[in-house]
């Protein structure tokens, strides 16, 4: 492979990885923006999304939808709704009663929810890896020795479209406007007649649905699920959210893509083996934070979201 070929191949790989990070990072960022909570359970929502879609897809496998793209799209839409509602439920039960409590109590509750989620899935699945069978093959297109499967290309397009839809939703709709307003001043919004509880629930719904879609895409792409699969990606997506400026929607997308690309190019540098790729990418991230502590797109506290 020539240098250019390696570059193009890694660009694709990095984009795909980065869009997974970005989708999960969006949820961290939105929730932080609106209730100032680091929702540690978010990574587990991603994992639950993977498992939920797997059961739906195995069910669709027996119907006219099949396990191909039709089944996958149907399973993804239903998964996003179910897991979105799960996110709302978690907010209602675990976070809402603590909304006025000290921030640390909320943080610990989030850790608790995370443990409940992954331990439940561990018990249900017996702690085993589950194969994610789809009807997709390995066909793709090649440019020289660069090889990209159709699955990869479609997943990148799907992830980026989801991000764009979210962006339009936040900037162009009334609900988006309400979200932005609440992130600036919750009490003031309440006085203005905005239904704060409803908007916060909506935020959790959207964030969880996006994480679930990422979980499903990871299942489709990598082919296996595990109850602890959210851990590594959770840390990375959280980092991506911070790098982009936590609370800022385009920042989370940018941070995710940047982290994906850094990881993907970092391993290609001679003498840096795959085991050093996290060290490499996180060193750069630390550098960014030293020079821009609020993150790439971060501004002053009052202008979040």
């Amino acid at each position: 492979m020539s240098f250019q070929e390696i570059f193009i191949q890694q660009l694709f790989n990095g984009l795909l990885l980065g869009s997974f990070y970005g989708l999960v990072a969006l949820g961290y960022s939105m929730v932080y923006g609106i209730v100032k909570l680091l929702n540690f359970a978010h990574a587990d929502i991603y994992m639950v999304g993977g498992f939920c879609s797997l059961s739906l897809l195995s069910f669709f496998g027996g119907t006219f939808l099949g396990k191909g793209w039709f089944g996958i799209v149907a399973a993804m839409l239903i998964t996003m709704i179910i897991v979105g509602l799960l996110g709302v439920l978690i907010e209602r039960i675990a976070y809402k009663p603590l909304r006025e409590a000290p921030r640390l109590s909320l943080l610990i509750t989030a850790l608790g929810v995370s443990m409940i989620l992954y331990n439940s899935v561990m018990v249900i699945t017996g702690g085993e890896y589950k194969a994610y069978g789809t009807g997709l093959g390995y066909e793709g297109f090649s440019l020289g020795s660069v090889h990209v499967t159709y699955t990869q290309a479609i997943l990148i397009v799907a992830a980026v479209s989801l991000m764009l839809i979210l962006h339009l939703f936040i900037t162009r709709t009334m609900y988006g406007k309400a979200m932005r307003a609440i992130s600036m001043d919750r009490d003031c919004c309440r006085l203005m007649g905005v239904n704060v509880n409803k908007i916060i629930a909506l935020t959790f719904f959207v964030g969880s649905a996006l994480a679930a879609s990422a979980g499903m895409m990871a299942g489709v792409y990598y082919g296996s699920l595990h109850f602890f699969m959210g851990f590594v990606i959770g840390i990375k997506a959280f980092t991506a959210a911070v790098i982009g400026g936590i609370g800022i929607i385009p920042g989370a997308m940018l941070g995710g893509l940047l982290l994906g690309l850094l990881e993907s190019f970092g391993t290609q540098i001679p003498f840096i083996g795959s085991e050093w790729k996290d060290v490499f990418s996180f060193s750069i991230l630390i550098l960014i934070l030293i020079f821009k502590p609020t993150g790439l797109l971060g501004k002053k506290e009052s202008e979040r979201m």
Partner: protein
Amino acid sequence: MTKRLWLLALVVVLLASGVFGCGQPAEEPKDEGPDSAEAPQFDGEMLIGVMVPVTGSEATYGKDMENAIKIAMDEINAAGGILGKEVKYVVGDDGCDPQMGSAAASKLVSSEVTAVLGGYCSGATIPTLKIYGDAKVPFVIIAANSTQLIDENAGWSFMINSPGYHQANAAADCFEGFGSTKLALVHQGDGFSEDLATLTREEWEKRGKEVVAYDVVNKGEQDFSSLVTKIKASGAEGVYWTAYHADGALLIRQLRQGGFTGDIVVADGSSSVQLLEIAGAAGEGVYCTSPPVVDFLPAAAQFISKYNAEFGQEPGPYSGLAYDGTHLLADAIERAGSTDPEAIRDALAATKNFETLSGTVTFTPEYILEESNFIIIKGEGGKWVLAE
């Protein structure tokens, strides 16, 4: 005060029941010979020790081995026993624990066994080598295969399972068979997979070939796309994955997704059928270096059906070797012509091309297998089958 006395009494009773309860039944040899009318007339009995874990976390494997030994002994007795004597066995439970292993070995030695079969956990087997050596009891080690067993051998122990480094040879042979010259090795940074990768690299380079990529992936990582690009860029013709099945399946998928068309071989830690399930279509035509598990050995079909009929379950991973070891020992004692320990040891050492289910047995001067007994299996239709 009375409370304390009661407690003391309770402890004494518990201890006593523990000593007698555990010691007693194993002491008496199990009468396992066939009782049918046409059973041959025996000229006395011969007692063989069986040292396997029958309690603790590894108990299932120990039981799998004991069952296979029983089948082999029934066959031997049906054919007239060894030197005209009826073969019986007595179990010493090593519990996969060095201390229990020593106790089991001492017990077997004091039961005056002619020879000992067994050894599943290397850790529990190592301290027993000296005990058997001091007591001059020939010992056929069935499953344990740490290289430490070679170093600590007191001159009376014979390993019929290949030591770990034989797998590196098996892998190199396999790639050589494919006609590859450039190899990529991937491990996971833990002791086992890294050792195997290093040994394979040494072996491959010794054969005058090139290792073009040698890399490690972090546990729990799902995305190997960068590694795949690296492997493709290195021009490797084959990839050897030395770690475990869950991550191995991800690597196989991503190698095929990334357009890698060379050969993929995985090590025994990946021989689970789940690897093929997760890898799906990408798992077709993947090879695996595996220990001789009876499921993959065509010669073992009769043994498997016998095992199924007698115990109502499938043989375990080391049942085949246990069966082989018993027949090997019987053959050696027959050749020695007496139960004199030195004669048996010399006969074992002189074993030449003895045919077993798992392959032919010839010992080196260190009493390990001359030829690796690793087999190559291949993913076909979502199952592992023996590759030629």
